[in-house]
C-alpha cells in the first residue's frame, strides 16, 4: 500500500476546462457581467463575483423521458392503506418527478467569476481610441536591445564566452599542440637513454614549441563584442488628470457620477499601462491640485472658471509629465456652467496646450438625476466644446444624469470601432 501526498501538486487542474467554458459562453457571460455591474458600486466592479447566465447555450442535452404513468416506492407511510387516493399536490407536483440532476433544471446557471475574469470580460470589447496615430511620434521612446555579436566595440561589452569559443575552434582547426602533448614529450625526452632517439625527440619538441608559439591561445580575430541595437520602446506609463468643477452648483449626486466615471477610467488604464498616476485638479474660479479625499469630499465654493483648471493641468504637464514619456489622459466633469468671459481663454488653452499633448480628453457633463437633457438648453461649456469639436478638435463628450448611464457612456466612449481599427492598421 502506498500513501501519496498530493496536496503539493500543482492545483487548478480544471483551469483550462474553466477557460474553455468561459470562452464558449463568452457572449452570454459578457451580457451577464454588464447586467450585474450596473447595479453595483464601482469599487465592487473590481471584485468579480457571482453571475448567472441563461442555461440555453451551455446546455448538455440528453435523451430523457418525462410524463407518463409513474410508479414510486416511498418510505415512511403513516396512515395510508391500499386503495387510498391522495390528491395531487398543487403546483406541478412539488418536486416530484422533476429531477434536479446537477442543477440543470434551473433556468439559470450561476457561478462565480474571479476578479480578473470579471474585469477582463467587462472591458474586453473596449480599447483606447486614437492610439495608433500617436504611436510613432510620442508613445514610443528608444531602448537598447541585444542584437548578436560584432567584431568591434567597447571593452566593457566583450563577450568572453563567444571569444573563448572561437579561440578554441581556431586552435583545434590549426592543430595547435596541447600543453600536455609537449609535457609528455619532455618527460619522454628526460627518460630517454638512447642518444639518437633523444635527438629526434628534441627536434620534434622544438617544432611543437615553435608551433605553439606561432598559434596564439587567443588571437585578436577571436574577440567578439556584444552588440546592442536601439529599438523604439512603447511608453508603459500613463497619467490621468481628473478635472472637476467643485463650485456650489455641483451637487453630491453630480460628484458621485464623476467619481464613478474616473474610477472606471482608472481601472481601464491600469489594465493597459504598467504604471498609472492620477492627478486631481479641482477648480472654482481658481484651480488647485488636491488629494483624492479633498477632491471628492472637500468643501469649496466660488464662481466657475474652467480655464484655471486647464491652465493648472498644462503647468503640471510641463513640470512633471514630459509628453514624450507619459501617455496623458484627461477627463473633465462639470455641470456645464462657465462664465462667458472665460470661453475664449478656455478654448485657446484646450486646443493649443492640452489637446496636442494628451492621448484622450473626455468631457462629461453631469446633471441632476431628475433632469432631462431634452428640456434644458445646452450649457455654455457644452456649446463651447461642441464648437471646438466641429472645428476638428479630438474631444469626446457625453452627458450623464443617472448612475446607471455611467457604464453605457463609458462603454460607448471606448467602444472598439471597426473603421478605426482599419485606419490604424
Amino acid at each position, binding site marked *: *500500500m*502506498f*500513501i*501519496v*501526498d*498530493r*496536496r503539493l*501538486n500543482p*492545483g*487548478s*487542474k*480544471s483551469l*483550462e*476546462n*474553466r*477557460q*474553455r*467554458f*468561459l*470562452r*464558449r459562453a463568452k457572449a452570454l457571460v459578457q451580457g451577464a457581467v454588464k447586467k450585474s455591474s450596473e447595479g453595483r458600486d464601482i469599487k465592487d466592479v473590481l471584485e468579480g463575483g*457571482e453571475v448567472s447566465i441563461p442555461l440555453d447555450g*451551455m*446546455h*448538455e*442535452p*440528453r*435523451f*430523457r*423521458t*418525462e*410524463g*407518463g*404513468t*409513474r*410508479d*414510486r*416506492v*416511498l*418510505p*415512511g*407511510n*403513516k396512515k*395510508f*392503506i*391500499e*386503495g*387510498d*387516493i*391522495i*390528491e*395531487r399536490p398543487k403546483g406541478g407536483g412539488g*418536486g416530484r418527478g422533476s429531477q434536479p440532476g*446537477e*442543477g440543470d433544471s434551473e433556468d439559470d*446557471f*450561476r*457561478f*462565480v467569476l474571479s476578479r480578473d475574469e470579471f474585469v477582463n470580460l467587462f472591458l474586453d470589447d473596449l480599447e483606447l481610441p486614437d492610439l495608433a496615430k500617436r504611436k510613432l511620434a510620442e508613445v514610443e521612446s528608444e531602448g537598447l536591445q541585444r542584437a548578436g555579436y560584432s567584431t568591434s566595440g567597447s571593452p566593457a561589452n566583450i563577450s568572453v564566452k563567444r571569444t573563448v569559443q572561437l579561440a578554441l575552434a581556431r586552435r583545434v582547426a590549426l592543430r595547435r599542440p596541447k600543453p600536455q602533448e609537449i609535457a609528455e614529450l619532455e618527460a619522454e625526452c628526460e627518460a630517454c637513454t638512447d642518444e639518437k632517439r633523444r635527438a629526434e625527440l628534441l627536434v620534434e619538441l622544438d617544432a611543437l614549441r615553435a608551433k605553439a608559439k606561432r598559434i596564439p591561445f587567443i588571437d585578436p580575430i577571436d574577440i567578439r563584442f556584444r552588440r546592442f541595437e536601439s529599438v523604439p520602446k512603447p511608453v508603459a506609463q500613463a497619467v490621468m488628470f481628473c478635472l472637476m468643477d467643485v463650485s456650489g452648483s455641483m451637487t453630491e449626486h453630480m460628484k458621485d457620477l464623476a467619481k464613478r466615471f474616473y474610477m472606471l477610467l482608472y481601472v481601464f488604464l491600469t489594465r493597459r499601462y504598467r504604471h498609472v498616476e492620477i492627478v486631481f485638479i479641482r477648480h472654482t474660479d481658481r484651480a488647485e491640485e488636491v488629494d483624492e479625499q479633498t477632491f471628492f469630499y472637500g468643501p469649496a465654493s466660488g464662481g466657475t472658471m474652467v480655464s484655471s483648471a486647464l491652465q493648472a493641468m498644462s503647468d503640471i504637464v510641463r513640470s512633471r509629465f514630459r509628453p514624450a514619456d507619459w501617455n496623458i489622459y484627461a477627463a473633465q466633469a462639470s455641470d456645464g456652467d462657465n462664465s462667458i468671459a472665460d470661453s475664449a481663454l478656455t478654448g485657446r488653452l484646450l486646443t493649443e496646450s492640452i489637446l496636442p499633448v494628451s492621448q484622450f480628453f473626455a468631457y462629461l457633463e453631469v446633471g441632476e438625476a431628475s433632469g432631462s437633457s431634452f428640456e434644458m438648453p445646452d450649457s455654455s461649456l457644452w456649446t463651447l466644446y461642441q464648437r471646438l469639436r466641429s472645428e476638428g478638435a479630438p474631444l469626446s463628450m457625453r452627458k450623464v444624469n443617472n448612475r446607471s448611464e455611467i457604464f453605457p457612456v463609458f462603454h460607448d466612449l471606448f467602444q472598439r470601432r471597426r473603421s478605426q481599427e482599419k485606419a490604424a492598421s
Partner: protein
Amino acid sequence: MSETHEPLFEGADWDFQQLQRIHDACQEIAHGELGLDTYPNQIEIITAEQMLDAYSSSGMPLFYKHWSFGKRFAHHETFYRKGLMGLAYEIVINSSPCISYLMEENTATMQTLVIAHAAFGHNHFFKNNYLFKQWTDADGILDYLDFAKGYVASCEERHGRLAVEMTLDAAHALMSHGIDRYPGKKGLDLRQEEKRAKERREHEQSVFNDLWRTVPTGPSKSTEILNSERRRKLLGLPQENILYFLEKTAPRLQPWQRELLRIVRHIAQYFYPQGQTKVMNEGTATYVHYRIMNRLHQQGRLTDGNFLEFLQSHTNVVFQPEFDDQRFSDFNPYALGFAMMQDIERIVTAPEDEDREWFPDIAGKGDVMGVLREVWANYRDESFISQFLSPRLIRSWRMFHLHDDPEFSEGIQVDAIHDARGYRRIRRELARQYDVGFIDPNIEVMDVDLAGDRRLMLRHVVVKGAQLNETDARRVLQHLADLWTYDVSLVEVDAKDNVLKEYVVSPRAVAIAA
C-alpha cells in the same frame, strides 16, 4: 483474541505513520476476519480544491479537456464557496491499484472511517462484483485515460479545437446510448485498445502515399440493391449502441472522429456498472466500515471518544428522511444498502419463521460473511432488491407504493403498503426503480435508407407513456445528424406500435463542411 491493543491515535490529528498504521489495522480485520479480497491500495491525500477538480472530471485523476468539465467545476465551486454543498470525505477509483482520495481536513477518526469504507469496502466490491468484472478493466483504465487525454490534445492540434469540441459535444450527448448492455464476444481490454489505436495510426502513416490519390479509378462496381433483411443484418441492426453504430458506419466521419467516439464510448462503458450498483456498492462499503470500526473499538485501538465521533458521522450517512420530510429526495443508497446488509446478517444469524419462509437458502446459515460475499459478487441493485428486500425491512421502513396515472384525474393511488398483500408488489416496484432498463429510454437504430437519401432511422419504444423531452431530444438528434451528416429521424412508438411522435432533423451546414 487479545483485546489489549494500544489506541491507533488520540485526538483529531493524524500523520502519515498513523495513516499507515490505520490502514494496516483495517487490513488485518478486512482480510483476516471479514475475508475480503481487494486490489492493492493507494491512498492519496488531497486538498479541497483538488477535490473540486476531481468532482468535475467524474472523479477521475486525469481526463481529456472539455468545456463541460469547466462548467461542472464552476457549478460545484459556487455551491461549495457558498456553503450550500459539503465535499465528499473521499473519492475512490475502480482501478488497480485502487486509488482512494482522502481530504486533508478529515480528522483521524474520519480518515479511519474513510479508509475502511473506500479502501476496503468499495475496493472489495470493485474487484469481486460480476458487473465490474465483466465491463471494466481496472488494470487499464488509468493508462487508457492518459491515452485519451493525449489523443484528444493531439487531435486539437491537428484538426482544430472547434472541430474536436463539436465531435465531443455530440458524443457526450449520446453517451448514455453508447453502452453495450449485453456482454459481447469478449470483454474490454483497455490496454489493448490503446495499442490498437496507436498501431492503426502508425500503419496509416507508413503506407501513406499521395500517389494513390491520383490513380484514376475504374467505374465503380455496381452495387446490387440488397434486400432490407440482408442490409440490416450486415449493418448489425437493430443496434442500441448508437455511438458504436456511428463509429462503425457513419459515412463521412474522419478516422480521428471515429476514435473520439470510441473513447467516449469506452468511458461510458466504464461508468456503466457504477450506475447500476449504487445501493449495493454503498451498502457494502458502509457495512464494511461499520464492522471494521466496531472491531477496532473492541480491540481498544479506537478510543471511546473517537468511536462516538464515528457513530455520529455514521448516523448522518445512513439517515433516511421519510417521504413527507423536507429533506426527502429519494432513497438514500447508503441507508437502504446498509439496512439491507444488516438485515441479511440478521436473517443469516437469527432468522424468524417469516425469514425461513422467504429466504430458505440463507436463513440460519450462520456464515454471515460467506453469504454477503456471495451476494456482493453476483447481484446488481435491481436483482439484489428483488431477491433480498425482506418483509421485515419493508415494515420497519413503512414503505408504500404510489401509482400516478395522469389519466386518472382523482389523484394518486396508493397501490400497496407494508402488509402481506403488498410485500411482493413493493419489492418488485422498488427493484424496478433501480433497473436501468426502465430508467434509460429504450432507443434503437432501426434502419438506414442506403438506396435513397441515407436517412438514419431511430425508434424509441415508449414505456408507460413516458415520452422524450422534446427540446432535449431535438438537440441530441441535431448532434446525431451532424455526425451522420444526413437526415436523422426518430419515431416514438408505444407497445402496440402506434406512432406517437416523429422527429426529423437535418445536419447543420457547418458540420457537413467540417
